[in-house]
């Protein structure tokens, strides 16, 4: 996983609620056996609409902003790979679907949850002034925008993973003794 500490970038606004992962990457593109190249098909079926925000050269940046419940539906991690491959490093919303959020955290895509009111302010300004800059400071868990700041939550373990570029596999692969011990202790609940 790539390290992450600070990000200063303009953003791409997508003020739509309940965006499911079938929209982020339609199922016909899930047949790859590697993680690369999904970016070109990000929001594929919405990009046929010339007014869609990704077709508007005014809106660029490493931050994707969406209305609440981003990433609901299918567990496909391909959605995260597509968002990363397209060039985003941060997604901001008022909240994310569970599996989407976990997948993002496991891939170095920082999911930031902010209040509805702050999200609304950001949307309004960014849509009108596409060059507006959002500052993300992971260490202090702050989002700065215009004259406003809001703190966001991330658990200490995941924050450390982002700051150091480490991940769950590393952590658990080093825990095998404890897992072995657990298995021996708990025969009853395991399969016969």
């Amino acid at each position: 996983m790539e390290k992450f500490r600070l990000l200063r970038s303009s953003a791409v606004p997508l003020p739509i609620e309940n965006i499911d992962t079938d929209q982020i990457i339609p199922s016909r593109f899930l047949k790859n056996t590697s993680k690369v190249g999904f970016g070109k098909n990000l929001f594929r079926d919405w990009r046929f609409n010339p007014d869609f925000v990704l077709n508007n050269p005014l809106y660029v940046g490493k931050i994707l902003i969406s209305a609440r419940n981003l990433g609901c539906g299918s567990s496909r991690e391909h959605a995260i790979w597509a968002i990363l491959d397209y060039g985003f490093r941060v997604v901001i919303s008022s909240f994310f679907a569970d599996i989407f959020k976990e997948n993002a955290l496991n891939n170095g895509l920082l999911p930031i949850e902010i209040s509805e009111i702050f999200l609304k302010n950001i949307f309004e300004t960014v849509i009108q002034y596409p060059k507006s800059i959002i500052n993300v400071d992971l260490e202090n868990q702050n989002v700065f925008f215009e004259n406003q700041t809001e703190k966001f939550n991330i658990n200490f373990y995941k924050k450390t993973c982002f700051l150091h570029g480490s991940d769950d596999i590393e952590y658990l692969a080093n825990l095998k003794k404890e897992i072995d011990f657990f298995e021996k202790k708990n025969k009853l609940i395991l399969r016969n």
Partner: protein
Amino acid sequence: MGKTLFDKIWDAHTVKNIEGDIYVLYIDIHYIHEVTTPQAFNELKERNLTIFRPKKIIATTDHNVPTTNQNLQIKDPLAKKQVNTLSKNCRKHGIQFYGIGNRYQGIVHVIGPELGITLPGMTVVCGDSHTSTHGAFGSISFGIGTSQIAIVLASQCILQNKPKQMRFHAEGFLRKSGTQKDVILYIISKLGSFGGTGYFVEYSGPLFEEMSMEGRMTVCNMSIEMGAKGGLVSPDETTFKYIKSKKFSPKSVFLKKSISYWKTLLTDKWAIFDYEYIFDAKNIRPMITYGTNPSMGIKINEKIPKTNLSKDQLEKSLRYMGLKIGESLIGKRIKHVFMGSCTNSRIEDLRLFAKVVQGRKKANHVQAMIVPGSKKVYFQAKKEGLNKILKESGFELRQAGCSACIGMNGDKIPSREYCISTSNRNFEGRQGPGSRTLLASPLVAAIIAIEGKIVDIDEYLKNNNIFH
């Protein structure tokens, strides 16, 4: 303080509490399929890690498999490569693999239960959001991403935040026209598409106690469609009876020992949930969805309502569906019917479908796909003569797979056309680019396949002798 069923299973599988709400959770069964695993196996290879417990993994192919002529090669080269990659990975690592041609092949959430692999009190994961299905057995079961698949392959454990808990308690019983599918569509329509986000759900009360295992699976399956991490039902005599006869379930003395443990898997009377809903089953009527997420559902004879969705989203959704606020769906001509998916493709579902169409004819303009969830379901349907009933009514029983629920295998619905589907998602393009999905129960799907249009189900049942 009392413990919930969820707490009891969670505690029994906690290897370690890292900090706050983050736990290392031991996983009993890891189901895998061809679409979400290749990158996970690559990840392990790149890190020089081995599969920690290959015997706790069960593999099948479902998303990409054709549902006709499975004896022939897969035509789509990418799909073929994915299926072959899984087969190779399983052979290499000694993982049990039920591929095309194997008598146990089928949709991962259909085969696990019917083979007696999923059992009460277990923790179950799979790289598929509908893993919540297995909660029907009183297990903690949830979908995971590919990174987490790699994590479980490498350690048989997963890092998880302990979710909050919610309970749906249902009094009363269903009327003839209401099915288990209508129960979950009703719940989702009330709670909304993210009302369950951050929660694990328990379904309790007489309605769920009276349900068959197939029905409980249908309900738990769609827990994810309200955003919930998963859903579960306490194991009881219905559960034990279902498990007993299954191929890989514990037998004789092991079964006895298991059952005495499973009987302890109940929520304590004094346990407290973060949220609790109580409803009466008699309010549940045949449901149908009209929008582009599963929470946009109504009783079939209701008019399309203004919802609490934002105006933009409702408009976008209805534009996509070609529908209007205030419109009734009754009378709408339907060209496609899909009967299948991990929600409704079990033998009980096929029996219901066949019972409705027996002695009747499919409407001429309707194209229907009837797809069993597994090879075992397929053979059982044949044994019971359901394939003959279907054929005489103008339907064809296909071979097992996910099929038109996700449209990866070529079974698709054309752009702008309506499909009554017994599956779980009506997202834009879910059944093929531009397709318009209306989710409903197998009973509704069967009646509409005969009538060729949406009808009032209660009226229909009054005038047609289906349930003697």
